[in-house]
């Protein structure tokens, strides 16, 4: 039973994260959401008896893809609607 609830929570989290990744205006948060999708995916792969795929997804999806997105956002704009272009990543972090 507890197992069931756990898996259901994983599924709901994954759908929630993907919806969040699409509707969130702040691209940095959206990218973090894709990172969370990958993390949940790699747990699911492990549960589906695919350890090789889980390892790959954890390394590529969570680490590399996310960091490339973050670097791109750093070099371009952070907000989706770009209403004020001045507000860049760096000033927001500090």
């Amino acid at each position: 039973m507890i197992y069931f609830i756990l898996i259901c929570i994983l599924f709901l989290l994954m759908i929630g994260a993907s919806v969040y990744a699409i509707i969130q205006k702040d691209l940095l948060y959206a990218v973090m959401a894709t990172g969370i999708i990958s993390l949940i995916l790699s747990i699911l792969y492990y549960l589906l008896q695919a350890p090789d795929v889980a390892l790959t997804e954890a390394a590529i999806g969570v680490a590399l893809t996310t960091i490339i997105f973050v670097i791109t956002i750093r070099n371009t704009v952070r907000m989706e609607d770009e209403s004020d272009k001045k507000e860049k990543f760096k000033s927001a972090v500090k």
Partner: protein
Amino acid sequence: MKKVLVILLLAVLGYYTAATFFDIGFGQPHFIKGLEPVKDIYLAQTVKTLKVSNAVTSIVVNFRGFDTLGEVTVLFLAVTVLGSVLYKKRHEVGERSVLFSASSIVTSGSKLLFPAIILLGAYVFIHGHLSPGGGFQGGVIIATGFLLMLLSYENYSVSHTALSVVESLAGITFAGVGLLGFLHGGTFLQNFLPTGVLNNLFSGGIIPIIYIAVGFKVGAELTGVIYTVLHEKGQSNG
């Protein structure tokens, strides 16, 4: 209006995809009865002929090794395309973008972790035929090690020449081992080495050799991707 149309289109697509996959069913044998699926042959031959413990490795490197050659080429091409798309004349190359200024805890911590990460990556791809993992996973782990160093040290740099030499040599090893399979009247990528004993480190014939080459290649390529993108300091209005 457009959104409604898109949602309608996606609803149709989703309905048919979902119907198809619910039809296929989850978790039970779904192949049509009476056929012998290839996976049974793969699993049997993995132990019997190739003496490899990890069936995914044997498929990726041997049975469907040609796919892997293509896949490595895709990554190689991605690095090439990245360099071509983001190419700037030498004097225009900007500084590296710095995501954050790292404190001394981060720098010394990553210095400490870096050898361990590289070691883990090497372990993963050397043991690719025995345990989960392999060339891709190990290569990616090594690339994350370099990523850590690049992020925490502002002036840490990887020699571009060294990266491309490693990449080329690993690629040549892969294709060359493949061509050596023609020895003794064999075919491309055919195993020509003794296969050893199951679950030993030295087993599986050419599979560990190819996976180690793939590991080096993927590591060098992904490091190259990160390095190229990181050196792309954006001007606000270009």
